[in-house]
């Protein structure tokens, strides 16, 4: 895995372009910086300045090469590359609180914005008026939407919220698409319909992710649990409480395996067994460098005992690659079905690229099914 420290401030959010040569990230301020990979260096090639508040979400559409950003200034902008510069187009979201997250749909003809106004704005381009309009999903959301993910059919949208629930909504816009075929989550999908609502986990839902087929959805919530629900006549839920600090982001890397990361600063693997409808812990995915074990002198031991009431010398330094919470995880190669590489960014201003094959061979008991 390779770690690159971009900044000293946290990276609020990031997005990759189609061929993974450029990364757009927000350095905890009102701007978006785009870096281009040059050998082993990263050079800043563009600075996108339009937001008046911190940029909370960035998504880069791979096929149409458009970037959508949203921020605490209650606005979203769609950026298109004209020649050598990115030009913004304002999107009226009609929200009165900050926008928190944004995602392009798989066909890139719509995007969804989650906000503190307790609603989701689903935006699409209206050809006649030549601008972006949006529709709101309001019921039954009762608090801020923290995270979103689209189903591969371009219609269903999973949303994690601060009202302790993960829900799947239909975001069907008749102006831009045909009626969708039935899915595991239901067959009638009018706009705003709730196809699934989670029960059983407490805590804000920080991260949500559909599997590659769209039949499973996973979410990580603030009570240190991860859960997976499988669609069907009745949705089957499996959750796992963990002994670590809460996880902030989660993604599927195969149909049965998830990687999640959060306040403990290292990614963790979970495995879902659909026969038993059970989720289990697969292993910690950080390979700490073996630091030389120095022997402690008797004087040091006594000092430790006096100051910290313990003779352990390990507690002071974090052994993980990231030195602060990991806030976002994204798939680089292989998609959600056979991920080969994924990337994490965090509050330490660093970005790490993890190679799945290397991790599998380095950790003995790791099995990615």
């Amino acid at each position: 895995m390779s770690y690159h420290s971009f900044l000293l401030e946290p990276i609020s959010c990031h997005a990759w372009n189609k061929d993974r040569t450029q990364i757009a990230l927000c350095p905890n301020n009102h701007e978006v910086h785009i870096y281009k990979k040059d050998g082993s260096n990263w050079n800043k090639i563009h600075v996108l300045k339009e937001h008046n508040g911190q940029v909370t979400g960035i998504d880069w559409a791979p096929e149409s090469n458009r970037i959508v950003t949203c921020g605490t200034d209650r606005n979203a902008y769609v950026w298109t590359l004209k020649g050598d510069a990115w030009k913004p187009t304002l999107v009226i979201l009609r929200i009165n609180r900050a926008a928190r997250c944004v995602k392009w749909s798989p066909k890139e003809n719509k995007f969804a914005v989650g906000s503190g106004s307790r609603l989701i704005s689903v935006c699409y381009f209206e050809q006649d008026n030549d601008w972006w309009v949006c529709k709101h999903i309001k019921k039954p959301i009762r608090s801020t939407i923290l995270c979103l993910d689209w189903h591969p059919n371009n219609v269903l949208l999973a949303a994690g919220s601060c009202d302790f629930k993960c829900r799947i909504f239909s975001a069907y816009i008749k102006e831009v698409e045909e009626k969708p075929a039935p899915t595991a989550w239901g067959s009638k999908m009018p706009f705003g319909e709730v196809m699934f609502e989670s029960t059983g986990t407490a805590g804000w839902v920080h991260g949500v992710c559909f599997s590659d087929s769209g039949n499973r959805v996973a979410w990580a919530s603030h009570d240190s649990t991860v859960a997976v629900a499988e669609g069907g006549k009745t949705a089957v839920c499996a959750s796992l409480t963990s002994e670590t600090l809460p996880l902030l982001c989660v993604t599927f890397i195969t149909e049965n395996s998830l990687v999640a990361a959060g306040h403990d600063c290292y990614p963790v693997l979970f495995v879902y067994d659909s026969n038993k409808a059970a989720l289990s812990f697969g292993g910690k995915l950080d390979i700490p460098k073996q630091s030389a074990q120095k022997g402690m002198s008797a004087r040091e031991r006594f000092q430790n005992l006096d100051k910290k009431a313990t003779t352990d010398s390990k507690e002071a330094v974090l052994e993980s690659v990231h030195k602060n919470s990991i806030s976002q995880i994204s798939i680089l190669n292989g998609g959600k079905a056979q991920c080969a590489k994924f990337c994490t960014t965090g509050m330490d201003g660093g970005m790490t690229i993890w190679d799945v094959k290397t991790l599998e061979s380095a950790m003995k008991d790791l099995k990615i099914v």
Partner: protein
Amino acid sequence: MSKNTVSDRFRKVDVDEYDENKFVDEEEGGENQLGPDEAEVDSLIRQGNLMGALQAVLKNPPINTKNQNVKDRAEGLVLKVLSSFKSTDIEKGVQSLDKNGVDLLMKYIYKGFERPSENSSAVLLQWHEKALSAGGVGCIVRVLTARKTV
């Protein structure tokens, strides 16, 4: 100035109660939860079967009920059981619990910290140390994020 600026009673009005978007927790019927069985637990303590008493006192936690008396009684009972353990047996006691049991124990421990009596904090701290090594920080996070607790 007019008369209505004299009174400051308006400052005591809780405006959040009148907010129409106020988040209200879902009501889950908790009227039947009576807490752990006092007689059963007492008899197990008298017999010296402390492991059994621990299992018994962690049954039927009064999580959903709004009756404060039931909650107080349950907490008092749990404290009684935890204090009657010998320090060396605490670890075994914690090992005998499953994941949910450890989470529930941690909830009772923090509830006990809220109202310390003479020796309770010392005993609770010993139990806290052992429960922490079994449940990890995740266990404490669940105590903090639980909307309905003992």
